[in-house]
């Protein structure tokens, strides 16, 4: 399948597809980070994670509209405000959901799956009723439009680079929170031994709620970033949820590094294959390979060694 391309063309194809893969990688990482916290640390299967992401996207969309109409001067920088709002909105909804729903189900992980699936249906219909079934897009500020021309064959879109930078920042932030803050220490303590953590004075209920909220908040930020590279519809979240779960499981739940590595592998494989095969076959091959590897190595790429 490589015969018809010259070496330099192949190089350009790989570079461009590699870059497209990096955009996909950013979305995967942003979604998977929140999920890795919720699923990996708490063991809750949040099927509504995609909808939390879409909430962030809709918040960004609203912000862009408001700013465009009422404060056009701020349009260049609205995105940063929107991102914070998206985090707060999704996080608050997440904490509410944890309080109303999830906390009753900690001992029944399979049931969280069904309940959050129900939640995702409700949220989808809510978005559809409020924002309409059509996909909406945000207007990008001028400085995010256009692309860098690296060579005459390789073009790199600026918004993609921006989203990638954002991904790196958020990942760093999550890393610092999980491994360098006292909250992170509490979360990890609760995960490893809930009773003991409670006994030494950690408020496990509050830790759970906060963890779930922050996981959902990160999904909201992912949604905000998602608007930079794609449009948002009520069911867009569902498109990514299975892929994201595979990313988390493939990386090895509870391992942030694994999540990033697996997001990178899956997105790169998919986008490189996409050029040579049809999009659907690329996806089939990638996912089948992942499932195959998971069957051989159920614990994922990176696994924490914990005595059970």
């Amino acid at each position: 399948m490589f015969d018809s391309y010259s070496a330099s063309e192949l190089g350009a194809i790989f570079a461009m597809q590699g870059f497209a893969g990096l955009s996909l990688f950013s979305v995967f990482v942003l979604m998977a980070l929140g999920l890795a916290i919720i699923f990996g640390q708490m063991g809750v299967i949040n099927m509504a994670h995609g909808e939390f992401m879409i909430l962030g996207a809709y918040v960004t969309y609203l912000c862009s509209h408001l700013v465009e109409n009422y404060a056009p001067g701020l349009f260049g920088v609205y995105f940063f405000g929107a991102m914070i709002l998206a985090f707060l909105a999704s996080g608050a909804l997440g904490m509410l959901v944890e309080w109303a729903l999830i906390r009753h189900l900690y001992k029944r992980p399979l049931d969280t799956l069904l309940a959050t699936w129900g939640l995702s249906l409700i949220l989808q219909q809510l978005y559809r009723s409020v924002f309409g079934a059509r996909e909406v897009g945000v207007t990008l500020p001028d400085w995010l439009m256009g692309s860098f021309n690296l060579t005459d064959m390789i073009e790199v879109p600026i918004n993609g680079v921006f989203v990638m930078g954002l991904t790196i920042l958020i990942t760093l932030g999550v890393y610092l929170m999980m491994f360098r803050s006292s909250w992170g220490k509490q979360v990890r303590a609760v995960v490893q031994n809930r009773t003991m953590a409670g006994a030494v004075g950690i408020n496990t209920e509050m830790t759970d709620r906060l963890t779930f909220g922050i996981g959902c908040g990160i999904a909201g930020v992912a949604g905000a970033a998602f608007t930079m590279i794609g449009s948002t519809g009520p069911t867009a979240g569902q498109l990514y949820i299975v892929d994201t779960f595979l990313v988390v499981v493939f990386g090895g739940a509870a391992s942030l590094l694994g999540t990033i590595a697996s997001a990178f592998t899956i997105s790169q494989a998919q986008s490189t294959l996409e050029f040579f095969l049809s999009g659907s076959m690329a996806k089939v091959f990638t996912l089948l390979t992942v499932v195959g590897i998971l069957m051989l190595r159920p614990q994922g790429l990176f696994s924490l060694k914990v005595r059970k």
Partner: protein
Amino acid sequence: MKSGFTLYTRKELISLLILAALIFLVFPAVLDVFRLNLVGKYLTYAFVAVGLVLCWGYGGILSLGQGLFFGLGGYGMAMFLKLEASTPEATKIQSTPGIPDFMDWNQLTALPGFWQPFHSFPLTLVLMIAVPTAFAWLIGVAMFKRRVGGVYFAIITQALAAILTVLIIGQQGYTGGVNGITDLRTLLGWDIRTDSAKFILYFVNGGLLMAALVACQFVRKSKVGRLLVAMRDKEDRVRFSGYDVANFKIFIFCFAAALCAIGGAMFTLQVGFMSPSFVGIVPSIEMVIFCAVGGRLSLFGAVYGALLVNWAKTSLSESFPELWLFAMGGLFIAVVLAFPNGLAGVYDSVASRIGKRRAAAPEGAPDAPPAPSDLAVPAAAAHRQPAAAAKDDEERLLLGGDRFLGKPAS
């Protein structure tokens, strides 16, 4: 299998007879052919739900990929019907006569190899069930032998269902793509689109469902069934007692998959087409909810669950399409939070309360108030001998009552 083995207790036998009467007498008597055909379609989902009762309720294996097996069964039947509909005479306007129309539209000039066996009806019947079962076996061997279960199993089966959907939609020339395999006409020369055919197919479907229920009950009451429950509650103890846990799990998963395949094939026959929209993640999870609503520990409950949820879906989405998703979502949450044992659990607790009241009453009035149940659960079965009630309690104890919910399946 001597005196110790009774397939049906008296109460269960009554439930079975009531269900049979409902399916074979009441529905055909009160519904027109169109509605009866719809009920027949719902009942094909009951095959899946019943399989899930064994697999999930008893075995603790939650599969979110039942649509995969349902779809494979359905596609098997659809491929046979499509080939029968695509005779060279019927398709002579195509550039390649004799192949299904969608292949011609996609510039295929010969029938792909994997379609060839579906020219023969007996081979179709075998493959239709063997292929999904073999798939289930493969998944089961790969996962259960490595002691993967619970959440991981759910996610991976879900991913597989998603993959199959993407594959079917992507390979339009071979599978009919997103429209699926449509325009099916005859089964061995017998027109399946007429009212009389729909009527007959409904009864065939009902009969198969009854057979499936009896087979499931047999599995449930046999040693396998008891081991499944034991495994679900304390897998390690079963393993330490010398049983190979994985084999039992593989068996029950394959069994459920075969049931799904039969349901899928009957679906194709009654609805007249098969498409990827019955294969993917959304239908697979909906199938789980049929089972959850009916009661994950009750075979009959699962049938009623499939009927009720689908009936609600049809009537709600006919009149209030907006409300349907809200209702469905609410149903998921309500079932999980408030009624983990579904309708059957509600019915059982109501029935046992009445049973206790009757036992406590000084003279057992022969006509105690019937069970206050508007849930299409056989009310007559509420009257039962105290001895039978005690036996039921014993059985519930055996199943661990609600306690099992506290244990993750892994």
